[in-house]
């Protein structure tokens, strides 16, 4: 099956590993990720100001494209997912934003939030199924792995509807599916602070150390994430307390697919 | 015959509101005791239950020159008489389709559920209904002209 896919800026450069492994694994699991044409950067952060329209248009373009190509839009980077999903909700339920964005875009028919935004993890869970993944695993990862959700996948939960915002389980279920032992630790849904790295170098350092220390204390041997920025921050500012990888890298390892 | 002033007056619709004694009439009382205003052209007729309202009453109101008729009852499931408002709901949907078949704007009639605790809602509903009917203008199709002009 084919799904429209939105890679995002970082996945084409610094986070190639995330993109490449994700595509290979999807293929191995029978899903073809079809990169949408002429996608533009989503802006990496959802603009909350109620008058922000122009900053949301690239997301709406991608959503409208997906609407006409299968109706689903697959995302991988947590930031892209957050921006696109929240923009989609605006287009669905906020009359003012919907009217003004459509006014700019002059699409053939106005976009009203019809597309379903799907994160790669949701695709694994709901389209492929964790049981199917378990069967496809050739090399079960016999390790203790900590899931790092961060903030972008979960919040605001009313819009993201990704998982329980305080007690998420989807990545833990994923870890079980690839033969690992999930380690739950209290800071898995705390922000790593990377957003302010350019302005305030100290804060992200403290926060990353806290996250990794917490994971280590509960017995994790490594930590996985879906966010290139979290990965960067935890790796650079986390003092090497634990190795940090993309979740798709572990999936590739378990499925035995090679980049 | 009295001389009618030629001064052009802004159209204010005449609205008949049927309210059930247990929920909506009490809701209207609460709107009053909470001083929540709505236009003076809404006049309320108290009935024991919304199911007491015969579609004939509504047609009669239109015939007599009402511009809008609204029927208020307890929320479905909360009827003081257990099932009365379910009958209302069914009867009125029939009446409404009959009215629209006759070419009467369906916005002139409305069924709303207002509980005894919903004074604010009662006022909001009435304001909205008056606004809707004002936009529609005078009810001409259903009025019995003999009644209007005979006076």
């Amino acid at each position: 099956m084919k799904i429209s896919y939105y890679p995002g800026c970082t996945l084409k450069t610094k986070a190639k590993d995330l993109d490449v492994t994700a595509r290979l694994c999807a293929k191995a699991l029978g899903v073809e990720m079809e990169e949408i044409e002429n996608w533009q950067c989503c802006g990496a952060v959802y603009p909350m100001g109620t008058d922000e329209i122009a900053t949301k248009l690239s997301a709406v373009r991608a959503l409208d494209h997906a609407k006409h190509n299968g109706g689903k839009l697959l995302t991988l980077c947590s930031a892209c997912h957050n921006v696109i999903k929240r923009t989609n909700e605006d287009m669905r339920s906020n009359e003012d934003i919907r009217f003004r964005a459509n006014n700019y875009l002059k699409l053939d028919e106005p976009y009203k939030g019809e597309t379903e935004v799907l994160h790669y993890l949701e695709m694994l869970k709901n389209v492929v199924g964790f049981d199917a993944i378990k069967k496809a695993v050739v090399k079960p990862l016999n390790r203790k792995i900590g899931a790092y959700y961060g903030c972008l996948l979960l919040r605001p939960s009313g819009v993201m509807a990704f998982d329980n915002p305080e007690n998420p389980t989807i990545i833990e279920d994923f870890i079980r599916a690839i033969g690992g032992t999930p380690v739950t630790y209290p800071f898995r849904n705390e922000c790593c602070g990377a957003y302010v790295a350019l302005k305030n170098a100290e804060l992200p350092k403290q926060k990353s150390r806290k996250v990794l220390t917490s994971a280590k204390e509960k017995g994790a041997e490594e930590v996985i994430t879906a966010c290139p920025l979290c990965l960067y921050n935890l790796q650079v500012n986390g003092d090497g307390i634990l190795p940090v990888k993309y979740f798709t890298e572990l999936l590739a390892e378990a499925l035995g697919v090679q980049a | 015959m009295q001389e009618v002033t030629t001064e052009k007056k802004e159209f204010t619709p005449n609205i008949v509101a049927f309210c059930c004694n247990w929920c909506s009439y009490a809701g209207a009382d609460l709107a009053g005791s909470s001083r929540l205003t709505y236009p003076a052209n809404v006049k309320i007729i108290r009935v024991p239950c919304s199911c007491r309202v015969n579609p004939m009453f509504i047609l009669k109101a239109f015939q007599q020159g009402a511009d809008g008729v609204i029927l208020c009852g307890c929320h479905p499931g909360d009827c003081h008489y257990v099932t009365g408002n379910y009958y209302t709901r069914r009867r009125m949907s029939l009446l409404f389709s009959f009215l629209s078949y006759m070419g009467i704007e369906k916005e002139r009639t409305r069924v709303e559920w207002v509980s005894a605790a919903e004074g604010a809602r009662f006022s909001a509903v009435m304001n909205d209904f008056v606004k809707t009917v004002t936009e529609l203008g005078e009810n001409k199709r259903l009025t019995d002209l003999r009644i209007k002009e005979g006076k």
Partner: protein
Amino acid sequence: MQRIGVFICWCGSNIAATVDVVKVAEVMKNEPGVVFSANYQYMCSENGQQLIKQAIKEHNLTGIVVGSCSPRMHEATFRKTAEAAGLNPYMVEIANIREHCSWIHKDMDEATEKAIILVRTAIAKVKLNAPLTAGESPVVKRALVIGGGIAGIQAALDIADAGFEVDIVEKNATIGGRMAQLDKTFPTLDCSACILTPKMVDCAQHEKIDILSYSEVEDVKGFVGNFNVKIRRKARYVDETKCTGCKVCMDKCPSKKGLNAFNMNLNTRPAIHIPFAQAIPNVAVIDPEQCIKLKTGKCGICQKFCGVGAIDYEQKDTFIERQYGAIVVATGFKPIALDAFNEYGYADNKDVITSLELERLMNAAGPTNGVLLRPSDGTHPKVITFIQCVGSRDSSGCGKPYCSKICCMYTAKHAMLLREKYPDTEVHVFYIDVRTPGKNYDEFYRRAVEQYGVDYIKGMVGKVYNENGKLMVQGSNLIDNEQITIESDLVVLATAIEPEPSVRKVATLLTASIDTNNFLTESHAKLRPVESPTAGVYLAGVCQGPKDIPETVSQASACAAKVIGLLVKDKLKTNPCVAIPDEMMCNGCSQCANVCAYGAITYVDKEFRLGGGKTEVRRVASVNPAVCQGCGACTVTCPSGAMDLKGFSSKQIMSEVEAICKK
């Protein structure tokens, strides 16, 4: 020819400030049929009523219209006035010129014009009124109390002491309710069991009280004075009349892993059990989900050891039907589920507990025999942190928008008791506001602070997490504008309370209204706080709104007073505004009987004269006026227009419509 009197009330300035009452009364003088019209400051006052009475007599009035407040307020008053002057009370109509006019309009001309129309409408109606006489219905001298907690117990005892029979229907195997689970009670710190269990025993021993435990109300028919209630007696697999409560079966039962609901699932109990030592009735019950015999057919040990042969694995649910004159609803509450509050770590940490769980941990009959031990490792906690308003005052959709009312006081109680019993503990309380109105309540809370050194922190907790075996409680301290983290051993959540979910079914059966939070609605928030809008149904305890024990007991006694006042009557006057068929027009089609929710309509074969000496037997509708509630559903459904409603006849309503529409 009707002779109508019109009486316009000023209601002080309530009406007179926006409606020109003098003008309204003047205009009415010229209305056809009106022979008298007056205005007065307070028509409902003694003098006002005197004015009405006098006018009725002097002018020989056949009907009156009072332009005043809502009929829901004073219709009954003015009917009595009319009756006192010799006029049929149903020849009175009220024009609501206060709630529906003066209070909602600001422009005097506009309001006066509307008032005139409203009074004209009432005149149009009253001209078609007919004298009505209220019928009578008998009162069954027995009350039903639904729920056997402290509210139900108090109401039942008070009603029974007045000499009326009372049945308590309790869905659990014992009465006692939530109060039986509590350790101490505020503000005097008496032991809950010490003050509750004597009342439970009183109930059991009272000759007028019948306790139907492990039972639920299945169906309710009838009306005030004459409810017919079907009660399900759930199979307890133990013969209530034989069991002596010796507890041998509990010792011998091999299936001991059932969660003990009475102890908030903090320990286990056998499949056959008596919920707690002082249970009433002191009779065992078998949990069919847990019993090996009932699940697999093999075992039967309890039966073997029962000395009186009380065990009956074949027992089935049975149903009984009883008649009652009045019903008290006292279904109580439960703490909310904490699924939406994972930030407090309740699901992941055994040492994060609810306040009700703490009650059991502190109770001498509880799972730890009253020694406070952490559920996780059985150690004695040194630092205990309380979090208030967990799920209360929450309009985000996760919790309840209301204040649960009891938490501030019981948290102060817990904090105080802990500091007293274990002076080596450190106790912190996060609070948003401390709400302690009530006699000796604020003094109680201040004692916790001033005498027992409990640390009250104005702020809220954002996250509770486990780190190196400690519970880290991270929250704000708004007074110091700080974010603090308290390393705690035990965290107690003052969980919001909600009505016991079974109240929804009860409300539906009784057609009692329920609000958006599932609390039962009282008839009037201030003046009729224990009556449900459904006649003959009364509300006691938390089913009506959050309240503590003293308030619950007061409300229960108030309910009892209302019930006694009802049951002491031999007959009740019935509403005369009932349906009436025109037998000449009725064709016996049964449509009206089909829509009647009360079964008030039956059919009779009647002989009619056709003229010329011929007769004909026809099937026609017949309405039982004692059963008809006067909703009018049948009047609209009747295809031949034979059915009408007294007091709200089609002609009357049509004439009201005409009066409103007339320009």
